[in-house]
């Protein structure tokens, strides 16, 4: 398989009233063509930020990419100017967001919001774009697409809106789809439908997918490889079976223990005692150490790199230091 995305040592800082604060510090991950990658971690770990960095949409100011490299199909994305990046967005890399409510523009019809992508990237005329938009709406499982085209977002349910977002994202058959918690804001039954739709479309279009979620249960169902993030760093990555069978970072293990609670719908928050430290308040050394049941004094010595656990499976915990 060929590399589609290769991120190396990516760091993003925000200017705040407490000074310049690093929110991503040296994230490295990769994604092959056609692969489905899950990115998991609690709130505030930097999952969305990583995705936005790929899209070239880190809010700036106050945000800034301070170092690192993002290669997409061999091209250095961080070196591209805005015009070149605009051509890639929506055409080769598409993204859908968590809140289908606010992610669609309230004052345009959903048909327009799908069709404009085709007009801009493929130069289609109004009628042709509209026809294609109708086909796309049908493909993402929206009944009566011809009528829906003329409706406004507030006339659609959350599930339908997310389908519209998916239709707009897939309009140009991107090579990479980034789905940032696409189901978190939806009802449980709708969540399953949307995930099934995404998996289905992924198989049909053969596009690589980066699925961001705080839900390891979702990961188990749809992805082939997992990246676990904690406090602005990758702490574990590997094939999904390997990570589930042998979680090698205590944080991953703790996340996994919280799955049963999730499955019963008791709580969406992983039941790990304590909270993720905010950027700027990260402890020295391993950032998970203060919440870790295995912590030893050496954990504070330095930030642990990703140690190999098995081929293609790495964890940033000194217990795996050779």
């Amino acid at each position, binding site marked *: 398989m060929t590399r589609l995305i290769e991120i190396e040592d990516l760091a993003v800082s925000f200017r705040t009233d407490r000074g310049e604060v690093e929110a991503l510090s040296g994230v490295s991950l990769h994604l092959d063509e056609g692969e489905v990658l899950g990115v998991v971690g609690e709130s505030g770990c930097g999952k969305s930020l990583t995705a936005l960095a790929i899209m070239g949409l880190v809010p700036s100011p106050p945000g800034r990419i301070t170092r690192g490299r993002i290669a997409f199909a061999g091209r250095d994305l961080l070196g591209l100017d805005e015009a070149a990046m605009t051509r890639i*967005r*929506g055409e080769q890399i598409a993204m859908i967001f968590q809140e289908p409510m606010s992610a*669609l523009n*309230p*004052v345009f019809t959903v048909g327009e919001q799908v069709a404009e992508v085709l007009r801009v990237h493929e130069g289609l005329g109004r009628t042709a774009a509209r026809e294609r938009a109708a086909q796309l709406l049908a493909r993402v499982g929206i009944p009566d697409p011809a009528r829906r085209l003329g409706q*406004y977002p507030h006339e659609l349910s959350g599930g339908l809106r997310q389908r519209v*977002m998916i239709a707009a*994202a897939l309009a140009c058959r991107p090579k990479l789809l980034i789905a940032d918690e696409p189901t978190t804001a939806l009802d449980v039954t709708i969540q399953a439908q949307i995930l099934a739709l995404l998996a289905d479309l992924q198989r049909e279009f053969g596009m690589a997918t980066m699925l961001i979620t705080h839900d390891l249960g979702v990961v188990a169902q749809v992805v082939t490889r997992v990246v676990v993030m904690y406090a602005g760093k990758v702490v574990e990555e590997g094939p999904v079976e390997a990570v589930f069978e042998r979680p090698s970072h205590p944080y991953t293990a703790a996340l996994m223990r919280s799955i049963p609670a999730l499955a019963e719908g008791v709580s969406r928050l992983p039941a790990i005692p304590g909270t993720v430290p905010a950027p700027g308040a990260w402890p020295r050394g391993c950032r998970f150490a203060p919440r870790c049941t295995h912590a030893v004094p050496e954990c504070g010595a330095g930030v642990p790199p990703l140690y190999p656990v098995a081929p293609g499976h790495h964890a940033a915990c000194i217990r795996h230091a050779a």
Partner: protein
Amino acid sequence: MVRFAATRLVAALPVLLLVSLVSFSVMHLIPGDPASVIAGPAATNQEIDAIRQQLGLDRPFLEQMLAWYGHVLQGDFGRSILLNTTVWQAIVDRVPVTFSLSVLALIMTIVVGVPAGVIAALRANTAVDAAVTGMALLGVSVPSFWLALMLIVLFSVILEWLPTGGYVPFAESPVDWFRSLLMPSLSLALLQIGLLARITRATMLEVLRQDYVRTARAKGLPRVMVIGKHALKNVMVPVITVIGISFGLLLSGSIVIETVYSLPGIGRLLATSIFGRDYPVIQGTLLLTATMLVLLNLVVDLLYAAIDPRVRYGR
């Protein structure tokens, strides 16, 4: 949309009723006896009684009111005391002046205010933003009559480019019409430009933070489309309302400006009739301008609904 318009029209009826009541009551609310005020200090009692009778002020309040409504509904607003004409004719003669003035000022307000606000928002916290915000603050702070006088000093007295006052009808000479209204409408517009620029800037900053703007960028739309289409249409939703209010303020601001530039418009008519205690003209002018404002509000509501579908569907 038609149903929406109809409901709004019905909702405006009570307001119109209230407005007409206030207009009618002017005669009775203003302190003093209108008849003796009109007659002047040297008048005899008989003369005052005669005027009272002529105005119907000797009849019971309710009867007076019903009679007034009866006349108004037939388009009869009475005769002016000072001017040798009917109230209706006095107003109709002056509407084109005030209308030209307000529309010109409104066009200036929109053409300058909205782009200035948008540019300030896009360049937030830069020198450009500071310049626009500063100018806007200046525009809001400078009293319009003072500005009007300064413009006259500069453009009429010193540079001698524009007339100091007076009105030339459009039909007579469009160029002179425009020249006669340029300074007055600018004096009127400056405050509104300042207000509109500030509100547009704040709204645009708010809209730019919205998720749908990020979505538009994520879809790879060029920046002109993200700003000029997705953001701007949302900005226009509140801004349209402000423009409507602006237009109303322009109408009332014309009282001062028409006096300074001696333009024969509604504003000056109202001013002279107030000073001259010309009650029928005061009543008629109030009633007609207030009705205009209510209708204007209606138009704004309809525009608002045309832009924002959520309003249309009653959400």
